Each structure stands twice: as C-alpha cells, then as structure tokens.
C-alpha cells in the first residue's frame, strides 16, 4: 500500500480513539470512594462520583504538607514539600489498582473497591 494510505488509516484510528476517549470520559462514573489515611488512620473520605467542580485541599502532618486535588472520578497529590516527591509523580489515580503513597509524610490515598461486602468478602452474614 502507498504511504498515503497508511497515513489515512492512522488518521482514522486516531480520530476513533479520541472519540472513544471522549465517550468514556463523559460516562457517569460508578460510586467510588477515595480514603485518605495519615499514620494508618482514615482522616477523610471523598465520594469521587459526586464531585462536580475540581477542588484542592491540604493535608498537614507533623512532617509536612501535601496538596491534594480532587476532580470528578479521580484524585492526585498536586504538590508536596516532601524530599522525594514520589506522591506527586504518581499523578492521578481513578481506581483501586494503586494507591498514592507519601512515605515521608506517612500519607496514603486509596480508592476503595466498589463493593458493599460485609466483611471477609461476604455479601451478607446470617446470624
């Protein structure tokens, strides 16, 4: 095939993926809660599906300050005065796959699995 053909194919694929991306982006997200832990204790819970306007807040621990940014369906640490900035480099998380961890500040941000299971993975407990 000619080079121009390839360019056209790639062009179509690009448009299609952009379209898909837009569609998935605007889909209503399922209920998801981001929990923020300092020193193992949950200090804040945010339902990311209910966020309309993005906003930021700071978490101040004895060791420093992290600035957290919340948008619809996702959360990230946008800045931090910790020495390694691993938390900032992690960037956005939008599912329970990986948490954001700031070790120096003992801060963990984790999105809980969409599950209302009682405990131990049960759907209900009879007694």
């Amino acid at each position, binding site marked *: 095939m000619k080079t121009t053909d390839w360019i056209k194919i790639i062009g179509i694929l690009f448009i299609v993926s952009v379209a898909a991306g837009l569609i998935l982006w605007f889909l209503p997200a399922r209920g998801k809660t981001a929990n923020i832990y300092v020193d193992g204790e949950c200090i804040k819970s945010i339902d990311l599906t209910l966020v309309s306007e993005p906003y930021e807040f700071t978490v101040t621990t004895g060791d420093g300050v992290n600035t957290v940014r919340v948008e619809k369906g996702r959360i990230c640490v946008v800045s931090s005065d910790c020495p390694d900035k691993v938390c900032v480099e992690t960037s956005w998380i939008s599912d329970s796959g990986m948490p954001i961890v700031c070790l120096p500040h003992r801060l963990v941000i984790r999105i809980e699995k969409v599950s209302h299971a009682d405990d*131990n993975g049960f759907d209900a407990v009879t007694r």
Partner: protein
Amino acid sequence: MTKFREKRIRSSLCLGLLLIVFSFSACEGAAGKARTPHTSTFFAMDTVMSVTVYGDETAADEAEILVSDLEKKLSVTDENSDVARLNRDKSAVVSDDTYNVIKTSLELSERTDGAIDITVYPVVKAWGFTTGEYRVPSLEELGELLETVDHRKVDVSGENTETGENTVTIADDQTVDLGCIAKGYTGDAVIKMLKEKGVQSAIVNLGGNVQTLGMKPGGGLWNVGITDPFDLSGYAGSLYVREKCVITSGGYERYFTSENVRYHHIIDTKTGYPATSGLASVTVVGDSGVICDALSTALFALGLEKATEFYRNSEDFEAVFITESGELFITEGLRDAFTPLGNYENKKITVIEHENN
C-alpha cells in the same frame, strides 16, 4: 478502484468503527448502571435491616416502606396493629398480610408438631423477653401458661372472599406473637416486590435473615457467611447460594443470665423452658423465607436427631447444624455449597444423607 469508491469504502469503515466504539461504550455505561448497588439500611421489627438492590435506584427505599408497612400490621407491641387488636379482642378482622402469616404459621405448626407455635407468647412474655424485665418463672406458672399454648385453637376459617374481610379468632386465654416467622414473611414480600419491579439482583438482610434474588451482577453466586455461635465476631463457614434464603436461629441471639445460668429466647413449646436440644445454632437454606424462618426455630428446639428425621421427610430445605459441643453437621444438599471457616476448618463435617422416602 476509482477514487470515489475508495472514499466511500473509507467513510463506511470510519462510520463502522465509530458505531462499534459507541455501542461498546453504551454497553459499558449500561452494564455499569446494572452493577451499581443501592442500599437502604434501617431499623425495623426490633433489629437492623438492609436491602441492597443492583440496577434500580429507588427499589431499596421502596422496600423500606414495605417493611415499615408490614411492621405496623404484624407487631405485637404496637397497640394499633392487627396482632394487638386480636390479642385484646380475641377475635378481629385483620389485613390480608396478617391473615396469611397466621395461616402459614398454623400450617408450619402442624408440620413441626407444634415445635413452632404463635400461641406460645404468654410463656415468652413470662420470661421477660418482650419487656426486658427478665425473670425465671416458677414451674407452676409455666404449667398454667402452657395450657393456653395450642395452635389448634386459632381459628382462621373466617375468610370472607366476598367482602375480603378475614376474621381470626383465638381462645380467651390465648395471646399470639408472629415474631417467629414475621421476618421470613417480610423477606419474601420484599423479594416479590423487587421481582415485580424487574430487579434481577438483590440481597436482603433482615436482622440476620438473609434472602437473595437472582445472582450477583456479573453472574456470580452470593457468598453468605454463617456466624460462629461461640464467637459472634467470627464465622463457622460460608455458603454459596443462588436465589435462596439463609436463615439462622441460635440461643446466642437473645438471652439473659440469672445465677450463672443462661436462659435464651427460643422456648420449647412443650416444656415452657428455653430449648435445651444440644444445638448452638441451626441455619436453614431454602426458597421460602417464611418456611426457613419457622424451621430454623423449630429444628433448633427439636434437636439434631429429630431434625434429621424431619429433613428426611421433607423436600424443601437444607440445613447446617452446630452442636453445643462445636460439632458441625450439614445436610447433603449443601455439600458443594458449604465451606468451613476459622475454627471449623479442620473439624470433621458430618453430612446428613437425605435417603429419599
């Protein structure tokens, strides 16, 4: 190919791809909605209840209203309820729901030879289980009260299909309490209502009575934990079920201690004393909530031997028994569904064969 045809083919390909992407996203969106659980948690019938519905945003709240409605009819403590009026006047016109519950309880009384009996209420009251003013009644007192316990004296023949008014009559010295099957009946009513609304996946927990609708979204079986009667924060095992009721009775649910003796709320209808059958808990699994609710109480009172005989003469339930010595027995139908947990993982599990009659 001509340039025109080339263009045509390309635009159709483009359109085709876009359509495929659109439909996938739409499916994702729809599937996402169908998997979203909506839970209503509330307090009713003296316990905590939760109704979780997948794919329907209002059904769980409607279930709460349905339960509240039923409670108003069936509650023995609400002085305006059907039951309270019946207890006061000894003969009363009652709602269809109340009538059905009473009728069903009588059928189950017959079936269990009186091991479950709504007329045992005066005895239960004498122990203080309704008021919380616990006491140990004398044998004389219990003897007198036991004479009033007789489900055969409850008259449900007053069914008027013309006016739709159903009359129930009890003996002058009787009072009734539907507590032994009210939750099971309510669970069935909730599941029925949800089905009528087109719900395909739901799980209901009415104070420990678990009832399920369909399978989990995504096609999995429901995983129901069974509380360890000797460690209420632990589990004896789990059951994987599809649209079944899983209902447990155990002395640990409600009891008081007097002079180092524990008295629980499951009264033996023949002795008037808390049933001492050697069982710590019975979990009944079946399609009907009202039957499982009643049988879990009846079998607990009957004990393992009589319960085994009962099982062999029945076709509509399976069960898990945990004895007071911590032994585990399961009926054969649960062999594949049951998994022992915690302290029971290394215990011997005895399977009770059905031996078709």
